[in-house]
């Protein structure tokens, strides 16, 4: 699972087959006073839409002075349906939205959205990047998912939908009713994008050398703690941990702690300011 080190300039295959445009849903929360802080672009993981961030994090980031945006990847949330979407199409969506923001953005990816961000960083010079409970694929993640939730995971291997359950996504602290509501809103990613996760798709090196923060929970039932460490090491740091939380840190009961940690990091990280 090593980032591909060499730079690729000639991208004939990519240029000759541009990603087909798709209508995208972008939700936002803008602070009332422009404070010169960089915009944040939140990228939800597979199955989630921009709503997952609109629930708590967008408003909270805006209240601390950061213009906050969340995109629904094609086929998710309010974006155009795209059953044949690929990982490349998702990364294209992120780069498109990031480039449309008024200023250079910080990309925040959650779950498999972190992998999408890692790929988008090779096509857009992010000011910084935050990978929240990153799912970078590979057999380890599949094994963990099969153990926890065989019924919801197995169909995905054969191109069916991936169904995550309450136990994988949330801690016990989150009221049942809320958890059920969130799980009910989950959609699914394109099967080609799901299959891509099996192959541990390598991202090209990020352009513009952005600072990267990795955070997650040691009690995450989707991303093992060892994966967190591995991803963080790839970007030359150690993960920031929030024990007792589930995979969906932005929806879980103590959602404020991780977002405050992210914003604190952005305030003191010179490269991301």
């Amino acid at each position, binding site marked *: 699972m090593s980032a591909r080190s*060499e*730079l*690729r*300039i*000639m*991208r*004939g*295959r*990519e*240029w*000759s*087959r*541009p990603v087909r*445009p*798709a209508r995208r849903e972008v939700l936002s929360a803008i602070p009332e006073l422009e404070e010169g802080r960089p915009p944040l672009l939140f990228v939800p993981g597979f199955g989630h839409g921009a709503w997952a961030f609109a629930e708590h994090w967008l408003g909270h980031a805006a209240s601390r002075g950061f213009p906050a945006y969340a995109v629904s990847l094609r086929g998710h949330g309010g974006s155009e349906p795209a059953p044949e979407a690929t990982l490349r199409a998702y990364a*294209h969506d992120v*780069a*498109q939205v990031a*480039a*449309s*923001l*008024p*200023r*250079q953005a910080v990309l925040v990816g959650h779950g498999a959205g972190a992998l999408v961000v890692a790929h988008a960083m090779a*096509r*857009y*010079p992010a000011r910084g990047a935050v990978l929240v409970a990153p799912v970078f694929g590979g057999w380890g993640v599949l094994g963990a998912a099969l153990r926890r939730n065989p019924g919801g995971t197995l169909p995905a291997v054969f191109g069916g939908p991936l169904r995550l359950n309450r136990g994988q996504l949330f801690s016990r602290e989150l009221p049942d009713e809320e958890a059920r509501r969130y799980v009910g809103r989950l959609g699914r990613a394109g099967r080609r994008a799901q299959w891509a996760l099996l192959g541990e798709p390598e991202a090209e090196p990020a*352009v*513009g*050398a952005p600072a990267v923060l990795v955070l997650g929970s040691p009690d995450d039932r989707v991303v093992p703690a060892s994966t967190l460490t591995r991803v963080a090491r790839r970007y030359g740091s150690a993960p920031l941990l929030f024990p007792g939380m589930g995979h969906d840190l932005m929806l879980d009961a103590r959602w404020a702690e991780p977002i405050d940690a992210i914003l604190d990091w952005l305030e003191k990280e*010179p*490269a991301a300011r």
Partner: protein
Amino acid sequence: MSTSTDHGRPDPEATSSAVSGDGRPVSDRGDTVCVIGAGASGLTAIKNLREHGFGVDCYERETGIGGAWNWRHDRSPVYASTHLISSKPFTQFPDFPMPDSWPDYPHHSQLLSYFERYADHFDLRSHIWFGTEVIRVEPAEGERWDVTTRSTGGYGPERTSRYAAVVIANGHNWSPKLPRYEGLEQFRGEIMHASSYKDPAQLRGKRVLVVGAGNTGCDIAVEAAQQASRCWHSTRRGYWYAPKYVLGRPADQVNDSLLALRVPLRVRQWLYHWTMRLTVGDLTRFGLPKPDHRVYETHPIANSQLVYYVGHGGIGPVPDIARFHPYAVELADGREIDPEVVIFATGYLPRFEFLDASVFGDSAGAGRPTLWLNAFTPGHPTLAVAGLVQPDSGLFTLSHWQMVLFARLLRARRDRPERAAAFAQRVRDRAGERYSGQVKESSRHWFEVGHADYLRAVERALVDLEAK
């Protein structure tokens, strides 16, 4: 990523300690890099140098960004209907995509708004001194440069600042090239260069002769076919008029799917000729001369409409001009035609009026420097030219990677001098290299490059520079 020299106006009173060769005070700008011009290539120079941690002072003679693509600028060659020749994926900067909602071939006004957004997104304007032109660039001790500027139009005092490096991004489509013809002075009709052609209303109801079969010449001929009472199109040789779409997709995208498969040039030429026969057909049937070269040997012409209007009689193809008479033009085949307006779409020549020609090894002063990768000068490791390439594709991707390479070279000069020295040696050894197949010799084609060959060469240079 910021340095102390970021925002200050170069101020001779406060910082002058050095003195130039002829005794003028020089303000020392430390490690700051000077960028000349805030067009497409200048903007990507600022952005990439900033990204690599360098301070930048950019001088722009106009009051806005966009260079040639800003139609308000007096040096801008664009006309009302200018559209891109290359499709979006080949045109955009590789790290700043054009919006999905734009067409395959955007209009020049969209391109300008793209540059405006690029400048705002990466906060480039605070590094640009608008309304300031560079009048002299001279080498100073320690491989640094003295850059002398003044307000555009010659007002105000001259200021000289000393920079660690200079990027020349003054564009190559602003100094018109006018051919000489016998009797041109006696001609009583109107004569203009394509650079002063702005709007088809200039042609309405007139008899128009368009000279030159570049992309501009073909565009103007097509507009004349719709507006003028009569249109002749004079070309020196036969060309390949490629349609903008083949097989239902932008033609350059189809071409690059072959390039990605590394199909050899001869096979691609054969496929291209075959596709052209199927789509455009036999041009000699319309009275156009047969191309005397294979495709990819001259700058490609992408124009789906030219042949259409020739077929409808709107454009009359004629050979080269022999001489001008007061009220007529004599053609090479002896015919005489009587245009009221003659438009020379005969191209532009690069010019570096602020730089001594010897720096570039261009002793003839013909605006034809000897460079490696069309960007690096032997013996001057801190000087780079951005965008002096004429690719068979979009230019901005190429300028972007040139400037990434230059920024990393400057960084290597500081951190790994032995690498930078090896790079300088390569520049000396390989200056003048070409990055295309065989190309027809002409003052327009000496900096013609194939985008695939060129980008692969830049990629190799980057890998060599950064190798362990």
